[in-house]
């Protein structure tokens, strides 16, 4: 077994490179045994489960280099707890950012709101309105204000999601085309709320970055 893992805040992503057909899979973070050990890890909770930890920006960049066949690109990862991006120019790293503070809990808050209000993000259209949100947690008060002002719950939450997407877009430098990774790739309202072109890469990009590094370091396929 050659187990690699991206330990996110709400979900952990795994791949066993020694399997006959290595396929990435998800596990809710709350189900992960504290005794679990993996060969290589990244992610917010990764240091608890491995002796070989790769920081998240490095894993994201290596995954992006492998998956995106362009010399110039911006890759933004929107997870449960934070957002981070890498920007490449002429095949070289040009800029990066990691917002664990003001980007705090964006994905987590969007998921919580969906469950609380029983909202299907597949069905919600992108609203015209957005509002100023500092972060996922502080932005919730805007939702309550909107509802108090007479806006429907779904519309208020959709405006919040759009606001979060605009924040993330600005954070990544407002590129014409944005490659998006992380759990929020699975939220169609969020993806459609970005101003520019968005190419979703799914939630296994950091895991791919680990696989690239494992191959480089250990010769794994």
């Amino acid at each position, binding site marked *: 077994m050659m187990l690699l893992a991206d330990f996110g805040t709400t979900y952990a992503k795994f791949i066993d490179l020694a399997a006959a057909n290595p396929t990435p899979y998800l596990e809710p973070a709350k189900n992960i045994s504290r005794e679990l050990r993996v060969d290589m890890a990244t992610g917010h909770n990764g240091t608890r489960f491995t002796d070989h930890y790769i920081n998240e920006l490095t894993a994201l960049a290596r995954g992006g280099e492998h998956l995106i066949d362009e010399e110039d690109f911006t890759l933004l990862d929107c997870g449960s707890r934070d957002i981070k991006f890498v920007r490449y120019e002429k095949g070289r*790293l040009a800029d990066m*950012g990691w917002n664990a503070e003001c980007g705090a809990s964006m994905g987590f808050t969007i998921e919580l709101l969906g469950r609380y209000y029983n909202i299907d993000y597949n069905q919600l259209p992108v609203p015209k309105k957005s509002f100023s949100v500092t972060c996922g947690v502080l932005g919730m008060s805007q939702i309550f204000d909107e509802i108090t002002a007479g806006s429907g719950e779904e519309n208020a939450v959709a405006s919040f999601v759009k606001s979060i997407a605009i924040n993330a877009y600005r954070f990544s430098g407002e590129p014409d085309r944005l490659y998006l990774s992380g759990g929020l790739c699975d939220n169609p309202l969020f993806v459609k709320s970005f101003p520019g072109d968005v190419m979703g890469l799914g939630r296994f990009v950091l895991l791919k970055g680990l696989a690239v590094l494992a191959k480089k370091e250990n010769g794994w396929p």
Partner: protein
Amino acid sequence: MTTRNIEATPFGTPLCKAELALPEKIERICTSIQTTAGHGQLPACQATAGFWGVPPRDFSMLSLFPDTTHVYGWSRCMENKTPADLELESHFNPALPTIFFAQSFCAKTALAKHLASQHPRALFLDCDITAGSSVRAKIQAFLELSGVYDASC
């Protein structure tokens, strides 16, 4: 009353270019301004990375840099004992992957951000009081992805 610093005699910047652990390098630069004595001789090393900025409040972030990091910005002005030398403060090496650092809310953030935008291989970094996990990860990832760690081995 004089309100401008008029110290213009350059004392040199051997510490900024020496091969030395970066926390110790910055510590020695800070200590050096407490005396009017000149600096001792230190050989300059082949630089693999650059640190531009003021001495950070949290020195722990400096331990992530290789010993072959050259120091720029106001820290270099400190060692040179010319704290108002904007030309020296604005100097950088475009061939060297460089982190332009400033404390959050410090006036130096504007210059740091401007110079980082002029430098072809730069990362602008600000940090409030302590260097949290995202600040440390940005430094590590930038140095690693810029090939600095490989070059310093």
